[in-house]
Every structure is written in structure tokens, then in C-alpha cells.
């Protein structure tokens, strides 16, 4: 099993619903977030292009945050989900510094927090909160080992990129372009 997510930049409108749905679903404190939206504009008026991306932890196969964690709190769980065990985390911040995607934040309660692909939901057969709420249905999620999963199907059909591939992390967050 290998969980992955694909975000369709052609449909994402950058509304940030994913951000707030993640916040309420996972009780992320006000003032913090596990997800964010990036908007990139290129060109000169009126020859313009814009890409909008809903971003989060890339759940890397080769995850620097896991390698550098001194306590083993950061680990790779079933399906390749990168997780933090809260009671093992000492809040040293090494993982935050090592993440090329800036996907982690220090929770005010003293541990480091990040996207979990809504592990608690996918266990119950639900989609992650962001994918379930997105009004444009631009977030695809599923198991790459299953050729019929939403994410496998769309990755086969479309042109795809990942972010900062040169970091060698082998990210599992894909962007449809």
C-alpha cells in the first residue's frame, strides 16, 4: 500500500477551504496550519499565467524529517504516511529545519505537528478532510498500488510534477499541470 495525493492546479481556485477544513477536523490551533495555498504568477500584463496549488506534507519516501529525528517520533507508518508520535516528540525542531517543503510547525503544546493524510479518516474508508471538502474536487487521494484508485487513475491520465524533485525526497504529493 502506498498512499499519495494529487492536486489539480487547473481546477484549484485557492479558496483555502482545505486549510480550514484541516484545521477544524484536526483541531489545529488558531494561528497555525498544516496546509497552505501557493499562487505563482508568471508574465507581464496581459500575457499572464497563474498556477494555484494546495500544499501540505509531501509524505516523502526518503523523508529527511524522519532521518534526522533524534527520538524516533517522526516515522513512516503504514502506507508511507509520515507521522509524528506526540509523546515521543521533544520539540527540538530538527525536522522543521530539515523539511524542504516547510510542512511542519511547532504546536503550542510542545510537539511538532503536520499533515497526517487524515490517517484517522482513511482508516474508516473516508477521504482526508481536504479532499472531502474541496469545492472544486481538485484533490485526489488513494493508494498507488491500486491501479483503480482515484489518484492512480488521474496520475496516468495527466501531466504531473512534484515540488523540489532535486531534493531527492521522492515526494508523494503530485500536482497535475
Amino acid at each position: 500500500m502506498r498512499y499519495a495525493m494529487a492536486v489539480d492546479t487547473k481546477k484549484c481556485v485557492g479558496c483555502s477551504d482545505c486549510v480550514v477544513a484541516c484545521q477544524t477536523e484536526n483541531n489545529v490551533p488558531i494561528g497555525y496550519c498544516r496546509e497552505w495555498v501557493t499562487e505563482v504568477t508568471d508574465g507581464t500584463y496581459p500575457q499572464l499565467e497563474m498556477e494555484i496549488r494546495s500544499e501540505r506534507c509531501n509524505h516523502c519516501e526518503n523523508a529527511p524529517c524522519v532521518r534526522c529525528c533524534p527520538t524516533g517520533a517522526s516515522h513512516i507508518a503504514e502506507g508511507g504516511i509520515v507521522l509524528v508520535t506526540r509523546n515521543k516528540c521533544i520539540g527540538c525542531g530538527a525536522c522543521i529545519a530539515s523539511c524542504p517543503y516547510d510542512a511542519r510547525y511547532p504546536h503550542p503544546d510542545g510537539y511538532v505537528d503536520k499533515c497526517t493524510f487524515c490517517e484517522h479518516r482513511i482508516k474508516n474508508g473516508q477521504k482526508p478532510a481536504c479532499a472531502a471538502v474541496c469545492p472544486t474536487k481538485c484533490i485526489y487521494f488513494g493508494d498507488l498500488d491500486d491501479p483503480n484508485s482515484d489518484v492512480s487513475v488521474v496520475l496516468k491520465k495527466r501531466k504531473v510534477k512534484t515540488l523540489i524533485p532535486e531534493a531527492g525526497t521522492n515526494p508523494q504529493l503530485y500536482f497535475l499541470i
Partner: protein
Amino acid sequence: MTNRRDFIRITTLGAGALAIGGGLIGAARVFSKPAQGAALKVDLTRTSTYCEICFWKCAGWVYKNADGTIWKIVGNEEDQHCNGRFCPRGTGGVGMYYDEDRLKTPLIRVKERGQQVFREASWDEAFEYIASRMKTISNRYGPESMALFTHGSGSSYFSSLLKAFGSANSAEPSYAQCRGPRDEAFMWTFGEEVYSPEVTDIRDTKCLVLIGSHIGENMHNGQVQEMSDAIDKGATIITVDPRFSTAASKSKFWLPIKPSTDMALLLAWMHEIVFNENYDKKYVEQYCSGFEQLKAHVREFTPEWAYGITTLAPDMIRKTAKEMADASPAVIVHPGRHVTWYGDDTQRIRAVAILNALLGSWGRRGGFYRPSKKTVPGYPVPEFKPASKTWQDLFPGTYSVASGVVSNVLIDASIPDNKPAYPIKGWIVNGTNLINTIPDQANTLKAIQNLDLMVAIDTMPMEITGWADVILPECTYLERFDILRVSPHRKPALALRAPASDPLYDSKPGYWIARELSKKLGLAAYFPVGNQEDLLDWQLKQFGSSLEEMKRLGVKTYEREADDLYFAPDEMTSFATDSGKIELYSAALEQMGFDPLPKYTPHEEPPEGFYRLIYGRAPMHTFSRTANNPNLTDLMDENSVWINPKVAKAWGLSNDQYIWLQNQDGIVSEFSIKVRITERIRWDSVYMVHGFGHARKQMKRCFGRGVSDTQLITRVMTDPLMGGTGMRGNFVTFLTEKTVAS
């Protein structure tokens, strides 16, 4: 330390990363933090609601934490408005409930208006105060001298109260400050309005034309979803906007039009479609009247003519006209929603309606569908005595096309200098922050200072509440029952709003407020049922449902009575116009002294050193009402002023610099605003999101954050047909220091 508090990162290639947004609020920790894993519990006590954060009214479910506090709100899968997916504002609706700055108790003014000093009062004392002043106004001037300004669910209760009192002067600013011109234009063309949610069949369209309509930034949920479906299906999107909007970035054609010239483009498109014989001939022949007059009218309006006005290349105008015709009838020239721009708005949207008629899209798949709506019986109450005078008697002979009550007329009639036929002396304002809704703030304040009574009913201490004599704290939609949602859609449906929590503080539901006030006014017979809950149960049982069933379902969708979502082939449809046809040429408008066919009128252009002020929506906020919501402030806590790089260079402005804006009338913004230098805006205009620059300290998160566009809209171009307040004729310049006292 990296900045993990940036929720939105905006990058310009080649210019390095630029982060904006990311409001940081110190203390506000609104969630009780459950132990790890607590969120896993399946909550069986979900409560049905429909959202009150905007007018789309999506139905959803409210879930609670183990300790009974509200956890999250998610969409109801059965709901046609949202299809199980709430927008950011609906998802963040929990913040409206948890906002610690909410109004908590009734308040009565202790100093004169303008000095915002209040004392706490009991509900009974507040009602006594209001009732006694209402009676005095009625005795002295007549009951019609009481006016209501309202938005949202409360409209139903407070307008009934006012009607029972003897006044029909209940205005929704959503008419004359927003969608009124659109509704009238379609009414006078097709004999029918476009409703809310709009009957645009976007999911099956082949070509969607957006004129200044920024779907995706305006988060009208179902429409955003259907636009995304249309993108998936390969539909063409044509966006006309001086700004590279989100929708423009998803479009095959973006027409970066010179602001205020849309009418010229519309006429040129009609010219192309008519003279290339690309219109739906059968449809026009069967359903429309006045084609020959229209043809003669648009003869001159070539793409070359329009080029000189709009700055759009003729070739682009031709190509897009062809694209629309090729998609016909599965094409939508979108009527828009907030369309009060330049004062000729009804006529501009008439041009939109006519274009749709030429393309044969009204009543056709992929164009506009026929909505269907469930009728719910009203509880029997005594007959309302018709009001002896209405808003139309205030300034006789004006705005004869208006079918809604024109809010700005009621405001103007509150100022004795304007010599209205009778005076407006008392206001009840519910759920609408008139200070940031109605342009020309000085005029609104002058009106308020001439009132004998001003009551504000709200959940938040909005600016308007500061001017009230009595403030009544309404509980949020998560704490009350409300009327059934019966909005028209593809299928008739009902949605229930039930309380997920008891009202916090001493806040109360609108129904209760109206009913208690009715008792003090001797009008209790008009509110015979003790509470909304029993009223809903009675209503639902009239047609075989029940409150119990609706609590379980949340949404109940019915089948249409007939298979008539679209016109049947060769259907002999009659339209509710004078001629029974779709009126391309409107003899009725002509009779009233207005242009029977839309004409292009040039509008004033910004003077040297000034830029046209364009405003719009952000997907995470609704007008100014969400500005203090902790969850939504987290996503966006201030607006910025978008400035083209060439303009910024000429002024020596840099990104993130705070500046003040001064308009053509010398009005300087009360607060400063962050500069956002971006290629996404034309050099003759600036852009900002509406709803910021709040001036009441009681709203701690949003006080002084950004600039209120409404404050800078002092020149109003009023629509002579229906009284809409055109707000896009204002120009601003930049001040790096606040040199002029405002």
C-alpha cells in the same frame, strides 16, 4: 525560523517569494483541545443546519466534540447547493459561534449618537424602549415611518413584524446594492429573474462567459463546483475583467477590458452574432420579439468600433463571439450577481439577457434551467392591513422599474432636507452592516442622526451597531431554529436549520426577538406559535413530513412534478412579459421613458494620478460580516491594494508598504493598506477585497486591518430604472503619509 504562519503564499516568478496573509492572533484559542485520538469518535448527535455565512445557504451537519462543544461543520451530501462540500466560509462557520467579541447582552445607548457609549439592559427593558418609541413614531408620523434593513434568515421575522405594524418599508441591500439590476433586466427580457442560487446550468455548459464575475473568488459554492466540472469536461471559459482573476487564469480567453466599457463589448458581440447569422434562428423566431429593431440598433457596433472603447482587439471580439455561437445553446453569458457598477447596470444586464436570447440559451441544457421550488404553507395569522404608503410614495416618479424596496431611498427619506413625501423616522437594522454596505457613508450617518429610533440586531458589534439606540444580540445560526430553506433548484428541496448548541451568553434567536417585540406592540396575534420549533413541525406535517424526519435527513429532495428542466423541442412557451415573448426590444421600458434597447454611454475616466477603484470578493470572507471570525481571519486578516508594477514604479511604492488612499472627493482612508504589486491588475485601476478596514475596536481581530472600499465610494451613479447604487465610478490616489485629516 521559517514562517509557518503563512497560509497563502504568493510568488511571482523571478521576483522571489512574496508571502502575504497569515494573520497571527495571539490569544484566541477557541477549541477545547481533545486528547489525541478523541477526534476518532463517531459522533451520532450531528445536527442539521444550513449555512448563514452567505446567501447560498448550503445545508450541512454540525458535529460536536465529546464534551458537547462544536467541533466541525461539513456539507450534507444530499444537498444540491453544496453536494456535501462546504466552502471555506461554511467550514469556518464555527468561528462565528466561538468569536469572543460577539454581542452578548442587550445594550442601550447612554450618550448621543456618534459617542458610542452603552449600558447593559435586560431584554424586557430593551423591548419596552423600542416599543414605546415605535408607537410614538406611528402616532406622530404613521407606521410607515418605520423602516427595516435586513439580510438573511431574520428578514422573514422582522419584515412580518413591520408589516403587522403597518409598514411595507422592508429593504434588503442585496437588491439596490447588489443584484437588483440583474433581476430587473432578466425580468424585462424573459419575464423571469435568475433566482438564487442562479439557474445557470454550468455543469453542462460548453461555454461560460464571465463579465467581471469572479467565480472562485466569489465562493458561490454550487457555481464554483460546477465551473470545476465544466473545466473537467473541457468547456471554454471566456472571462472579461480588467484584472487577471482566478477565473481568468482558468480561461481559454481572457479579455482584459478597459473598466466601464463592458456595454460596448456586449453590443459588438451582438453585432457579430447577428450579422454573421450565428444566432439561434429558430429560437429567435419562435420565442423572441423585436429582432429587426435589435438588428438595426447593433448595425454600427462593429468590433472595430468597440476596440476604440474597450481596448480589446477586434479579432479577439470576433473569435469569442464565434466561440459562443459554436457552443449555442449550451452557452451561458453569466448575469453576474453584484452588478451595481456604473448606474446603467439594468441596461448592461439587459444586453447580457439579449445576448443569451440570441444564443438560445435560456431554458436549454448547458444554458439556463427552469428551477423548481417546494411550497411550504404558512401558519394562519390575521390578515395584514395593507400599508397606506410605500417606499414608492416617498419620492414619486422615481425608479419605476424597481420591484424590490430600494434601501437608499429609505435612507434618503430619513433626511428631512431631501423633502420626502413622508419622513422615515425609525430604523431596525438586522444582519446588515449598513456603514460598510451603503456607499456615501456621510449620507448614511446624516440619515441616522435624524432618526427618532435606531435598533440594530446582529451577532457582532459591527459599525452599524455603534450608531444604534438599542442593540439586540442575536444568536448565531448554530444556536437556533430558523425558517425552512426552500430555495429553487433543479429539484425542489427543503433544508432544516436546528440548533447545535444553546445560545451562548444572553443572545436570542431572531424569531424570539420578533415575537417578544410583537407582544409589546400589541401584535402578538401575528406570531401565534410560541417558538420556531413548533412552527416548523406544524408546517412540515401539512405535507407529510415532520420535524423529526427533517432532523434525521437535514435535506429532503423531491422529484419535479414534470420533466421540464429545459424547454421541450418545439415547446410553445409563453413568457411573463407584456407580449408573452422574450422581449429583445422592450416597448414597456420605452413607455416608461427608458431606452428600449441598451446603449453604450461613456463613463468618466480617472484624472491624472488617480486610478479606478475596483473591489471584489475573497473566497474566505463574506462582505464585511466574517472579518472578525477567528478561523477565517486566520486565512486572511487584511486586504491589500493591488497595483500594477508600472504604476508602483512611477510612485516609488514597494511591496508590503502601508499606504493611505485618497479618493476624488478628498476622502482619505481611515486606515492604511498594504501594497501588493502585481501584474494581475491593469495600470488604470487598483483592486481591493471588500469588507475590511473595520473601525470598531470591539472587533479586536479586524479593527484597523486594511481599508474599507465603502468609505472611499462617495460618488454614487444611481440607476435611473431601479435605484441601484453604481459604485465603480470612484478614483483613488496614493498617500505615503496620512497628511489630510479625514
